[in-house]
């Protein structure tokens, strides 16, 4: 027993075993991707920035200005202005802005949205945001529907 231990100590057995593990892992497939050239698939539920959408079939505006998303947002980054429709039924959306600087991607705004099953506000898969200016992060209604304009920088 003591002799065995001594031999172990002398031969640095546990270090060689460790080396063997490292060697084995050299031949495992890579799991990293080279980011700007390749990107990973997102899960369908991935929560990127919140955006607005129109009805995919009719192309109509879905949001009915119920202000529920504004009320539940913990960072108070949604601001909605609406006015009564001329015929007195329902409201017209005047402006809808989300301040992406404050948004924490929690997804709470989607939960109460009443235009089910397609909620007017949804968590998009957009995540690449870099800008030189803070103003670009205040997205108005048009940008929320069409997506923020992407500026590509060439070298």
């Amino acid at each position, binding site marked *: 027993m003591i002799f065995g231990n001594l031999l172990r100590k002398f031969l640095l057995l*546990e*270090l060689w075993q*460790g080396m063997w593990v*490292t060697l084995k892992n050299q031949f495992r497939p890579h*799991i990293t991707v080279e980011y700007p050239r390749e990107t990973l698939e997102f899960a369908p*539920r991935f*929560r990127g920035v919140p955006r607005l959408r129109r009805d995919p079939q009719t192309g109509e505006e879905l949001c009915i200005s119920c202000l529920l998303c504004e009320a*539940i947002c913990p960072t108070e980054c949604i601001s909605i202005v609406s006015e009564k429709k001329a015929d007195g039924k329902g409201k017209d959306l005047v402006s809808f802005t989300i301040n992406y600087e404050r948004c924490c991607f929690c997804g*709470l705004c989607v*939960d109460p949205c009443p235009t089910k099953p397609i909620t007017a506000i949804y968590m998009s898969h957009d995540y690449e945001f870099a800008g030189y200016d803070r103003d670009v992060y205040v997205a108005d209604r048009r940008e929320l529907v069409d997506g923020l304009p992407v500026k590509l920088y060439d070298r």
Partner: protein
Amino acid sequence: MFRTEMMDINMGPQHPATHGVLRLKLLLDGETVTDTDVIIGYLHRGVEKLCETKNYHMIEPYTDRLDYVAAMYENLGYVETVEKLMGVKVPERAEYIRVITAELQRIASHLVWLGTHALDIGAMTVFFYCFREREIILDLFEAFCGARLTYNAYRIGGLPWDLPPGWTDRARHFVKIFPERQKEYDTLLTKNRIWLGRTKGVGILRAEDAIDFGVTGPCLRSAGVDYDLRKAHPYSVYDRFQFDVPVTYNCDTYDRYLIRMEEMRQSTRIVEQALDHLPAGEVMAKVPKRIKPPAGEVYHTVEGPRGELGFYIVSQGEDKPYRMRFRSPSFVNLQALPHMIRGSLVADVVAVIGTLDIVLGDVDR
């Protein structure tokens, strides 16, 4: 001829081994630490006060940002506390899914701990392997709730979504391959003489001191105290699963390593059992849209990866808490740090910070 002097050394707040913005003022006698000042507050965001201005739904994203390495537990503790206050019965399926995700989170959190702890001590390889396996768990979480770090995955009364199709198979695949991978970490570290030399007998925290400091979690169990809230005060559906609580008696860094390794194995066991018995049905109980718990106060704890994670809410019957208080394990465990490193060498400070497994978001709140 020679004059020796005590020396004050500042460590942190920007230091790779302090796992965040922790600042230590070490009073050194040569290489020996004689006294330590722990200075915290660099990450203080005033979440407790903030919560008093938010309604009960809005608080959950804030809890994510406390212990961001194990955000599922913050979510779990918070929603369970509110449910306890309201007396809501959560559907079985939701409870099981909560247990599965929470235990996967424990594994993920321990993997971060193992990787960074080993990295601090000088074993770099383990770090990459740990993060590789953690990636699988994060992918599972992304498929389940859409986020990889700040999940906001539960709601008061249940879950916002059911599991996506194919999720259970992926989870099963993970629990199948994970023990094999864990053996690799074992081979790299458990008997490695450098690892033994750096961790054995380092950072001793005896049971009576641990209890006096209020230390919980693996740090307490390494001192021979068999106290795990999942067994001591079972919450959720933990009383239905078979698992062991590892306890060791040497009180040192190496023992805490062994305990966390074993906890990962036990968590795998729990996930397996929960997947086997996952009931069908609803995932959301009937709760009012506007959550207004009755007036009263409640304290509820869950066993997080770092120890006892408690939530204390005082309600006055409004839709906002009157007072919110978090008992964060990292904050309490950090108190023991000066005691644990008194008289040890500077190099061991890094090992002891690693073994306490603190997250500064949890310490400062």
